[in-house]
């Protein structure tokens, strides 16, 4: 049997021991997973970002302008010195500012305008009357009414907000079920791996 399958099988069983209760075997593999995942991310970022985008163009591609992000990045290490730690605010401010600047048009387009346009459906066309268009419009407006806190939820606004809670419950219920099913699907995949590849009881 492939050594990789044996290791993967033992580690899978070690993690499943947590279903009984928290135990040293689970904690050991949990820390192993954390360590290896950090090490993996470290290598990937080092290679794909620091080497490919920074060091190679800076030292062999003749792009001295890249000294700016290099210095900004190194300033992050000032956090380890209490006297100089305020310097780390500079790269953080740059990242947050740039991120905020990019987010405004992106949020306006993808999260707002696109969602509004997708919600506007024809109520009547050649195919006849579409109850779905009415449901979507009602659901959208009433849920938005629920999240609108600048006015008291009384009268018509209160009724709309209450209807919005029903739509929200449908959303939460459907999302919950979808999440459970996705986790169950992964669990079945792991059990299938254990029984078929590791223990060879099936197939």
């Amino acid at each position, binding site marked *: 049997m492939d050594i990789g399958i044996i290791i993967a099988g033992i580690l899978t069983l070690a*993690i499943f021991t947590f279903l009984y209760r928290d135990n040293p075997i689970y904690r050991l593999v949990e820390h192993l997973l954390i360590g290896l995942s950090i090490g993996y991310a*470290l290598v990937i970022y080092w290679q794909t970002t620091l080497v490919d985008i920074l060091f190679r163009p800076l030292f062999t591609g003749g792009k001295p302008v890249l000294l700016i992000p290099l210095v900004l990045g190194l300033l992050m290490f000032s956090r380890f010195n209490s006297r100089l730690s305020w310097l780390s605010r500079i790269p953080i401010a740059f990242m947050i500012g740039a991120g905020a600047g990019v987010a405004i048009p992106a*949020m306006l387009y993808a999260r707002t305008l696109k969602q509004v346009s997708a919600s506007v459906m024809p109520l009547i066309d050649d195919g006849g009357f579409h109850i779905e268009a009415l449901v979507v419009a009602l659901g959208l407006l009433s*849920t938005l009414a629920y999240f609108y806190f600048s006015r008291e939820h009384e009268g018509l606004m209160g009724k709309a907000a209450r209807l919005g809670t029903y739509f929200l419950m449908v*959303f939460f219920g459907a999302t919950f079920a979808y999440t459970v099913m996705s986790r169950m699907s992964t669990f079945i995949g792991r059990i299938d791996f254990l029984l078929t590849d590791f223990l060879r009881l099936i197939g």
Partner: protein
Amino acid sequence: MKQRLPVIICFLAGAIMFLQYFSPHPVARSVYSAILDYWQIIFAFTLLVGVAAYVKSNLKQISRGQDIPYRLVAIAGIILMPILAIIGGIKIDSPFLWVFENVIAPMQATVFSLLAFFVASASFRGFRARNLQASILLGTALIVLVGRVPIADMISEYFPKLTFWIQNYPSMSARRAILIGIGLGSMTTAFRVILGIERTYLKGE
């Protein structure tokens, strides 16, 4: 200086990135691309800082004699991956990717699958049809749960269709309203950050 300089840098970076969106000029495009590269580079450095802080914290715990085997295993994991990458590179069939495929990926998938039990047990304890809203939540969850497995077809041919309808119309409409709310909220927060009204990121050193 300690407060004003970061606020000015935040404003400049934010304003440039916001305004470039409205310009198709090649200079605006290249500035946008350069700042995105800078962002990625600084992010990689923040990861290095995070790893250094994690290792430092683990070494501190080891020196105090707390959870020594676990801490050592975590640090060994962090050291092992770069060593494997240095020895064999990160290409296909390298020891680095072998560890990813046979150790990291199976463990991640198993931890992810563990949540199925906790979600199920939490819902068993928490789901009670106390009022109309709770009943709608419970009913929808049951319909979608059953509707997404093969048994739904055996119960009725309309069951999967009902599940599809719920997910694509009433559920989707509430989801869209939430997304619109997130979009408007994010935009407002982004404006507040750029204009220096929101400065919570300056707290803590």
